[in-house]
């Protein structure tokens, strides 16, 4: 198994909560690719092994994806999805999965900041292309140039694209300047709100993770609200470790709740990795991150 990268923030899929904010179209140095995306041809999602792409490449990518708990396999899966998306007519499901794969490798595997940034941005673009395949999104975006308006056109079948767009964008913005973070904040809130409105249980309570972390990054943020969202995410998916490491690192430290910090991390460290089989790879990375966080307990709660 190759060496895993340093997890800047071990929360997989928290849609960039790192922000006391976060932008997109308007974010410095980034232009939406939506106007340059192919015209919408596909409404809704297709199965990964859908039409128009090289079937064997997609199957290979899916096989590698199952092994993504290994950093080497994660990189190979990403490369295979890149080939699949380039090899034929893209569909929303493939592009959304590509976006998620960029996120996974950037967040858990890569160590170098510039490389991470590049991958998060590619993840944003892949999700943009996925959303642009929806005629309603495409139409509203071109008319308003406002993704926050356009995302309202998307529904339950498009959650992957919405969510992984926000996740990649948020993580990309999180280590940028204050203005970039502020410029993206309302967009990240809007995309996560859309996910929350459609399905609060999506990706193991992902929108609750986002809205749990957000107040911890805002001056004077409502910590009771933060706690309430984290608890909801845990009620939805107690064995998704990313919620617990995030709860410990972002909420418990700031709220000065040592007991919460220790309890959440101990849960992650003692729970079986296969408690939630579909995210066992992500949980593996999060367990390692929990160990590192726990080592710092006296630093935060001296």
């Amino acid at each position, binding site marked *: 198994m190759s060496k895993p990268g340093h997890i800047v923030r071990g929360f997989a899929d928290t849609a960039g909560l790192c922000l006391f904010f976060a932008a997109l179209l308007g974010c410095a140095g980034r232009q939406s690719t939506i106007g340059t995306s192919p015209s919408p041809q596909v409404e809704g999602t297709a199965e990964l092994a859908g039409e128009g792409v090289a079937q064997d490449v997609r199957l290979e990518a899916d096989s590698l994806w199952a092994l993504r708990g290994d950093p080497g396999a994660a990189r190979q899966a990403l490369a295979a999805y890149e080939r699949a998306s380039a090899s034929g007519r893209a569909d929303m499901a493939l592009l959304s999965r590509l976006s998620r794969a960029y996120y996974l490798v950037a967040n858990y595997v890569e160590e170098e900041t510039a490389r991470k940034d590049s991958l998060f941005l590619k993840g944003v673009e892949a999700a943009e292309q996925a959303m642009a395949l929806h005629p309603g999104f495409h139409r509203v975006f071109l008319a308003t140039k406002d993704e926050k308006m356009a995302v309202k056109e998307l529904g339950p079948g498009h959650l992957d694209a919405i969510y992984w767009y926000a996740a990649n964008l948020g993580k990309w913005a999180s*280590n940028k300047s204050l203005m970039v973070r*502020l410029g993206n904040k309302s967009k990240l809130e809007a995309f996560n709100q859309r996910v929350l409105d459609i399905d609060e249980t999506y990706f193991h309570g992902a929108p609750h993770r986002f809205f749990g972390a957000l107040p911890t990054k805002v001056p004077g943020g409502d*910590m009771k609200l933060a706690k309430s969202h984290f608890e909801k995410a845990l009620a939805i998916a107690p064995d998704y470790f990313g919620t617990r490491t995030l709860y410990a690192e972002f909420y418990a430290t*700031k709220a000065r709740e040592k007991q919460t910090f220790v309890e959440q991390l101990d849960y992650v460290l003692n729970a079986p990795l296969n408690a939630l089989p579909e995210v066992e790879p992500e949980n593996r990375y999060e367990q390692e991150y929990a160990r590192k966080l726990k080592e710092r307990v006296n630093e935060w709660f001296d």
Partner: protein
Amino acid sequence: MNGSTRWLSSLRAIFPPAQTAWLALSTLLVSTVAAKPVEIRFATIAPEGTPWSEQIEGIQKRVEAQSQGRLVFKPYLGGQLGGEVETLRSLRRGRIQAWGGSAGALSSLVPELQLLELPYLFRSHEEADYVLDEVLFKPYAKLLAEKGLVLQSWNENGWRHIGSKNKPVLKPSDLQNMKIRSQESPIHLSMWKALGSNPVAISVPEVLTSLQTGVVDAFDNSSLFASATSWHTAVGHFTLTQHIYQPGVILYNKAFLEKLPEDLRTQLLGDAKADAVQGRAGVRALEPEILALMEKEGVKVHRLGEAERKEFSTVLEPLHDGFAKGINPELLKKTRKALEEFRSR
């Protein structure tokens, strides 16, 4: 004579020069190798990528380079060690060694800092910089020292302005009967009452909801704070009234600092004025960008001229005397005198 020269002089009195040189060198080498770096835990609620964090990083780089690794800075940004009040307590207890935050948070400890909250005490950045650096730095440093704290330098939170929902606040009468969120501070509450509005004391976490649900129709704060908390998303107008200038501060724990050798102490304290200039420049450069962002997000920004701000200050400056006793009459007198001198230049 500093600590190291004193040390060498005493060695020379005991040993001949050659031996002194050898002894000094070997002692220095041994102590350098053996000495454990002194860790400075620095807590602030300022997040990464902000002018405040950049100022802290600047101090960190300078201190670590000058001390050649004998001092190690560990900044905890974004409230990782708790809010301003909690970390201030930790600073006083010596659990952390350095702190960056608002003068407002400190005023419960040093009530004299409320002087800076008086509306329209300052009319411009230049006035505020002059008075803070040349007139008030030493008196406040003394007051803080009495509480076991050392004032390293000022920095800046910025001017407070007014955000309002349905109509802009362009003159004092626009605030008549307006429900406005207020800090729970006698000065702030009196200010709003003097302007004819109805202040409602609301804690920071509840302000956005209060604006959205109509509990209040307006708030005041800096553009950066309003943007970071998304309060601006609940209003249609943001008027640059500049009614209160709020500085920030960087502090050390006094007992910790006094235990350090003189050279390290000097390095930590650095050049207070230069650090303040750098910090302020960063914050001031941000405001135009933040206002542009607010405008992009649909908020109408109203820029007042000097004459328009004068209408507000005419109503509010007479409040100053009423608070003088609780603050420190001498300090207010000194500040007024300095301002008169500055304005007459």
